[in-house]
């Protein structure tokens, strides 16, 4: 092997190792595992018979590690709820599923970006620290009305203590 080649390969492999260490620390220590990981099933034909998705929206959480559960149904070609207000500073676990085809669930300007698939519930937990409005849109082709699917997350003042 050529001397420069050795140097280059060593540098490259070290960079690779560094990348993987950063990813690993972020995943294990920072808890940044990918959205929607894990397997939680639901019958796509009976989504609305499930208490959680009957009237989807924001509900106070029974769990101690987050303040609210936020349920969304993504269907052709709309999101329910069409708009939702969240008190600033609260930690919310988002649950999304689809009764028909695959949809995307992207909250623009946040880290929430995952697939909604029939038969499964996709979840992601995050804390909303700033007030403001976020567009929710579908980023997986689902049919002719795909680009018309929208909803809104509005992070409002009022704090958790007012609830």
């Amino acid at each position, binding site marked *: 092997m050529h001397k420069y080649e050795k140097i280059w390969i060593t540098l490259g492999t070290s960079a690779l190792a560094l990348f993987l260490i950063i990813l690993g620390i972020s*995943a294990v220590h920072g808890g940044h595992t990918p959205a929607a*990981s894990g397997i939680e099933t639901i019958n796509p034909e009976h989504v609305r018979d499930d208490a959680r998705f009957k009237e989807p929206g924001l509900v106070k959480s029974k769990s101690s590690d987050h303040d609210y559960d936020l349920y969304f149904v993504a269907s052709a070609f709309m999101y329910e709820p069409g708009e939702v207000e969240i008190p600033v500073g609260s930690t919310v676990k988002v649950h999304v599923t689809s009764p*028909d085809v695959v949809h995307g669930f992207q909250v623009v300007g946040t880290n929430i970006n*995952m697939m909604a698939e*029939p*038969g499964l519930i996709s979840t992601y937990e995050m804390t909303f620290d700033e007030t403001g409005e976020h*567009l929710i*849109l579908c980023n997986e082709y*689902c049919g002719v009305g795909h*680009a018309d699917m929208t909803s809104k997350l509005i992070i409002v003042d009022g704090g958790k203590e007012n609830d």
Partner: protein
Amino acid sequence: MTNYTTAQMLAPNTKVDKKDAKLVLANMIWVAFALLIGGTAGLLQTLVRSGHFELPFGIGYYQLLTLHGVILALVMTFFFIMGFQIAALSRTSGPLNKKERTLGWIGFWVMTIGTLMSATMIALNEASVLYTFYAPLQAHVIHYIGLALVIVGTWISVAGQMMRYFRWRRENKGQKTPLLSYMTAVNNLMWYVCTIGVASTVLFQFVPWSLGLVETINITLSRTLFWYFGHALVYFWLLPAYMVWYAVTPKILGAKGFSDNLARLSFVLFLFFSIPVGIHHQLVDPGIDAFWKGLQVVLTFMVIVPSLMTAFSMFAVFETYGRNKGATGLLDWFKKLPWTDARFVLLFIGMLFFIPGGLGGIINASGQMNQLVHNTIWIVGHFHITVGAPVILTYFAAMMFLLPHLTGRKIDKIANRLGLMLAYTWALGMGIMSAAMHFAGLRGAPRRSTFSEYGGAEVAEEWITYQVMQAVGGSFLFIAIIIAILLFLKLVTGPKVNDVEEFPVAEFMDQYDPAVKWVDNWRLLIIITAFLVLIAYTVPITQMFTENIPGAKGFKLW
């Protein structure tokens, strides 16, 4: 210790056999045709997304997008790869025999029939499911069968190619195989292993389901089988370009390649790490545990090693060449490169695009950053500066010498000038379009979406400026495609000459060094490849069967 026989050194194959040439040309006609159709669709898409244009004759945006993806990502690339690999074998291992060539022709016709079946369904608006055909959107069964036939056609053609390779090995026992032939065989092995995924999902899931024999489909499984194939697919596109970079480019310069053994090793690494990585396309899919997503991210990162080896080799060749031409100082060699040779300029510009392309790939594969760009138009920008620039520009460079070589002509001044125009116009168009896509994606603009104001959302307004830029880039790309078609016509018409254009094949600085034996030990290669696949996929796929994920009924929502 490997030795070249005297006969081989004195009279190596220098030309693609005449009968093989016909087969190669048949494949290349499809490439030009698919480029024109797919490119036109691409132009229209960028115009629609700019918000200033509507499609005529009731053509749907997603119908057009399906056509664009299928005809460019699958049809054009497959025909090029089959044609190029057959030419490479015939040139470096010698003519195909009757059986091998017949398999090439059968493969060609099966691919053609499959393409026409799918194209018909797309034209009839029975298959507007995009090229990834995610269930439970349900296309006409003929569309799925057509796609399956395209894959089966490649299997048949590849069978002929593999027979040629192993015949050379039998006839030249103990010798180092010709590099281009070896690379072809590695790419083909990868292809056989990865297409098992897409073939299984189409045959056992999509076909019975779209025929109505079964009511529901396991979509998590179908997506996973698709991406088991889908990521190796991108390396199937890329490796023929790497063949040109490693084994042809040094000869275009009139220099020697850096290292034959290093080239073989990098191909083996691509074989190992192209397949057990598909889940990085499903990082934010439900139905897969975080651990297995993480494991496949790690495996994905391994391709950094052969990629950097390739970059090193190429620039080692360029610098050595420049210094032999009298270059001094640190970067003077760069000026000495043959900037007037269209073949070189095409593939060199491709290489430059691959630098941001590779960096973007590392970002996309990184679990956390992926979540910010997943399914945004950033991704579209990414694959347009990978398959849409380094790969396709290298294909163009190869066609510049292949077409006249096969038809008994030579690249003349006009053709060379057209080639240079093609390179620069493509670079300009792709530069503008892909930059706009990357920036819009970072601001949240989604991929695979027609023009929309998203209910008047402020952020969506910001995206429209970038979409106009994409249309400007798309227009330049369309002009480049017209130039490419003119170039192809120029290369296959005009007077035939005795001094036919060469199919350049380089010697290497370590040409006569002993071969590394294990890289040509096919049993070992298959075992390691299969082993990595089993590690990465056994548990996630088993869970898709055992976790009772409810099946999904089909929908036709277009």
